[in-house]
Structure formats: C-alpha cells, structure tokens
C-alpha cells in the first residue's frame, strides 16, 4: 500500500506519480502480461462468436458423437451439435455473467466496506454482522436453494451469485478502508467539514484502488466458477449456451461413460484458462503493490536482513 500513501496530495512526495508506476509495473510484470493476453483472446472470441459461427450453435449439424476431425475440430455432442461452436458461443454467457456478477458484488462490497469503516460504531457492527453471516453460510447450498425457489433464468443466476458473492469483497474492503480511515488526511477532511459521501468516495476510495481491483478480479473468478457449478447442477437457464450448460449436457448425455472426452474437455479448460488468467493478473497486482512478495534474487540470509 505504499502507492496509496504516496498518492496523498497532503504529502509532498506525490510528484512521483505512483499511478503510472503501478500501470507500468503491471505491464512489465510477466504474469500480468500473460493473463491480460489470455483475457483479450477470450473477449475477442466472445465478441466475434456470431461471425465465426453464424446461426444457433445448439442446432444439430452432424452425426452424433463424432471424434474431432477437420470438419468438426472438437467433434460433436451426443445430439450432433458442433462442440467448437458451443464452446465459442458459451464464452458469451459465461464472460457476461462473470463480469456482471464481479462488478455488482464489488460495488456492493465497496458500499458496505466504506460505510462500515467511515461511520463505525453501530453501523459498522451491524454491517459486519451481516457480512460475516453471509460469509459463513456455505455458499453452494445457499446458491442451490435460492436458485431452486426463484424462477429459472439468467437474471436469477446473476442475482443469486451476487447475493452469495458480495460478502467476501465487503470484508476485504472494510479492513482496508478502516486503515485508511485512521490516516491524518481523512481526519483533516472531516475537520474541514467535507460531506460523508465525498470523504468516502473521493478521499478514501481512490487510495484503495489496487485492493478494489484485486477484489474485482476475485469476484469475476467466483462469478464464472459459481455460474458453471450452478448450471452443471441444472439450476441455470438450460436453454442458453454457456460453458456450465455445456458441461451439464455433457454429464446428462453420458459423455464420460461413452468416452467422448472432447465434449466435456473444452468448456472446462476454457473456464480454467479464464480463471487462471484473472488469478495471474491478481497476483501481479499483489506483487506490484506489496514489495515483500516481489522476487528478490539475493541469498536468503542477506534478503532477510535487507527486508528489515
């Protein structure tokens, strides 16, 4: 969090433009670069899906359970759908839901975390209690029971994932906001009579930008994974094409037992690649902002005395 402190206008060192060094640090970081390239490829695929594979991807175009071949690069499902088309189209729903859930739960997390840290006392107690209860309730069973009672559809999936996903980000953001809340410049802003909203969003929030970004990435990873899990259980909107639904149908049609590995491998690998890419970016953000985690090439003993 050195960048956050440096960024303060009240401190003269602000001229070092830590923001640029943060972006620069991310771009020169190998992990971040790999992660961002993978993400860009997937976003491009999602956007270009209707051009690459025009028409409904779930229509039946060939014989059932064909192995991968030049005509069908990833083979066909037990119904005779093209697996590659399903996978590419699936990225649209999965990325959309993941990003929406990520942004929505981070947003709620910011609101709750900032309000907790700024107002303190009773409001903090109450909000922390709610946050901790939601953190403790086992996520997947809660997802299942919510999804089972709500009418099926994309809106339900997003709503349910946000309900179960916001608490983690709220907790992380609250503790960060608390430490910034106790800094002198916030006290100065309070004394000079700035409004609560302004202090929260203009004074405190900009100083925790890197944590917010880390939280956002974690929430997107959660959103994509949890959506897939929910859909795999058949609790999503089974009529849409998404990676989770592809896996649901693969399981339903017995792709495992008949040996059609090409039906279930692509969607799972895609989920993993996206989650891995986001995790890489997340670690890079950590490394850039937390000097202790940076790679140091000195021998252990010297490094330890140097760290002090």
């Amino acid at each position, binding site marked *: 969090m050195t960048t956050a402190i440096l960024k303060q206008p009240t401190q003269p060192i602000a001229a070092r433009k830590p923001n640029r060094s943060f972006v620069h640090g991310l771009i020169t970081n190998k992990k971040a670069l790999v992660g961002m390239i993978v993400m860009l490829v997937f976003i491009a695929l999602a956007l270009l899906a209707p051009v690459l594979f025009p028409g409904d991807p779930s229509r039946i175009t060939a014989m059932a359970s064909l192995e991968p071949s030049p005509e069908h690069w990833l083979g066909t499902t037990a119904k005779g759908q093209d697996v590659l088309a399903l996978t590419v189209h699936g990225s649209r729903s999965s990325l959309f839901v993941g990003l929406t859930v990520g942004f929505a739960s981070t947003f709620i997390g910011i609101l709750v975390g900032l309000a907790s840290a700024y107002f303190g006392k009773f409001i903090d107690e109450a909000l922390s209690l709610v946050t901790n209860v939601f953190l*403790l309730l*086992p996520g997947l*069973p809660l997802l*299942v029971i919510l999804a089972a009672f*709500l*009418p099926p559809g994309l809106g339900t999936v997003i709503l349910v994932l946000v309900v179960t996903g916001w608490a983690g980000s709220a907790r992380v953001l609250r503790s960060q906001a608390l430490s910034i809340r106790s800094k002198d410049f916030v006290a100065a802003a309070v004394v000079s009579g700035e409004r609560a909203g302004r202090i929260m969003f203009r004074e405190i929030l900009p100083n925790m930008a890197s944590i917010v970004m880390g939280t956002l990435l974690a929430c997107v990873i959660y959103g994509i994974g949890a959506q897939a899990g929910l859909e795999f259980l058949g609790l999503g909107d089974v009529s849409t094409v998404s990676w989770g639904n592809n896996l649901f149908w693969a399981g339903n049609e017995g792709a495992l037992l008949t040996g059609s590995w090409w039906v279930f491998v692509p969607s*799972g690998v895609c989920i993993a690649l996206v989650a891995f890419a986001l995790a890489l970016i997340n670690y890079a953000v950590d490394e850039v902002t937390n000097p202790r985690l940076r790679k140091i090439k000195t021998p252990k003993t010297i490094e330890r005395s140097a760290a002090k």
Partner: protein
Amino acid sequence: MRFILRRLGFYLIAFWASITLNFLLPRFMPGDPVSRMFARSQDRMQPEQIEALRKLLGVDDRPLWEQYIGYLHNIFTGQMGVSISRFPTPVTEVIASQIGWTLLLGGTALVIAAVAGNLLGILAAWRRGGAIDSALPPLLVFIGSFPYFWLAMGALYLFGVVLGWFPIRHAFTAGLEPAFTWEFIGDVGAHLVLPALTIVLVSIGGWMLSMRNTMIATNSEDYITMAEAKGLRPGRIMLRYAARNAMLPSVTSFGMGLGFVVGGALLTEVVFAYPGVGYQLLNAVQGLDYPLMQGLFLTITAAVLLANFLVDILYVRLDPRVRSN
C-alpha cells in the same frame, strides 16, 4: 471465555438467519413452487401429509408471525416434514442416512489438503526461489482454476473409465453388506480415492499460497534472526519458530475452508454419484422436493457453523492474545 461467548452468540445469529431465510424463501418468492410440487406428488400423498406440508412451506392462511413460530417449533423439535422424492420417508431420516458419507469425504479431503498444503507452503517460503517455490504455486493455482466438478469429471474419465483403476460411482460396491470388515473398509476406501483426490487437488493451492505468504512475513521477524544467531538447527527454526507463528491464519481459514469443501464435496458427489448430502441435494432439486432441500440446507449450515465454533475454541488454545482481552 468472553471471546467464546461472543462467537457462540454470533453463530446462533447466523443459524437463526438461515432458518429465517428458509422460512421466508417459499413464502415470498415469485411464482409458486409449492403448487408445482403438489401437482407432481398429489396422488401419492395422504390428505394429512399434504396439510403438514402446506404448513411447512407456508401455503396456509394463518398470519405470518404465527406461521413463523410454528416453523421454529418444528425445526427445533426436528420435524422437517416428509421427503417428496423418497416418499414417505421423513426428511430427517433421509439426511441421517447420508450425512456420514459427506463427512467422510469432506473430512478426509480437508485434512489431507490442509496438512499437505501447509507443509508445502512452509517449505516454499523457507527455500525462497527454490524448486518448490517456483514450480508448485503456478501449477497449483492453474489446477485450482478448474471447476471442482470438472476435475472430478476428468478424474472419473481418466482413472475410472479409461484406465479402470478405481470404481466410478457410489460409495461401496452394490450388494456388499456394510460392516466393519476389512473387505468393506477397503472397498469404501477404493471408492473414496477419486472424489477425495479431486477436492484435495483443487483446494491444496490456496492452503499452500496463504501459508507461504504468511511465512515470508514471519521469516523477516527479529526472533528468527535471533534464533539463527543462537545457532539453532535450520529445521528447528523453520518448524518451531517460523511455521508455528505463521500457522494462526491457517487455523482460521480451516473453518472458512470448510464451507468451500462442503460446496466442492456437493459437486464432486454429484459427478461420482456418491451417496452423500450433495448428491441428495441434487436429487431433491430435480424432484422438486422442497422439504428435503430445506432440511439439507439447514443441516449443512448447522454443521459448518459447529465446525467453525470448534475452530474458534482451538484458536483460543493456540493464541494467548485472544484469551487476555
């Protein structure tokens, strides 16, 4: 003691919240899941059982607070209604017959993942930049990126169907009589390998990385330098000085991790048709068996809360600082 009481109060509130959620969900949700369920199962049910179910799910005309009190009474006296998909077995009986398998699967996987993950984390932080530190974290993060159930599908396909090393479904071979014989225990063990392996694989990375990062912070503490200056053996410094102090966050995440393992176990069970509560939850969802769904949710929640409480007590034992304030 005050700490323990505070935590206990918190868990009671959390449990109350989940009961209330359970109560409100069927009553305030748009659409009518209850009548869907009744339409499906009416012909098999006795009139008085329908009446009891109506009460459980809130399709009666009493005022809301009266329903709520009745509901709480039912929960605490263990009356969770009758399962629809396994009619006419009571929900509590269905759950009781299956929770053991989930505890076995989840517990085994959690303990193995936590112990192995923490050990790897300790080693990685101690030999900073060594083989374990540079090769394992990226690999484990990559494996951890896969959805639980997908890895389970992969393991089932590879080791179960193609290689045929392990059985691919259920907890023991059909026809084998459950008993404390070596044959049966071995059979259960063989069925446990694949589901447990997938959960361990996915969750070990998180343990390792958090332990590694705490250890790196601990390694730069003064008392480590002091211990080195005293000339203690490196192994002793690593385990008794550094790791011991870095363990605390891991103990806390053990309780938290439980929730994830329960979730992971649910999906893994579905893939392997392992007869635990997760597999049953899916059956309940597919059979529109709302009483069973709710009962399972409450049971799982109660188990997770209880485990967290036990972890808190352990934490008080381990960290004297908590005891003093």
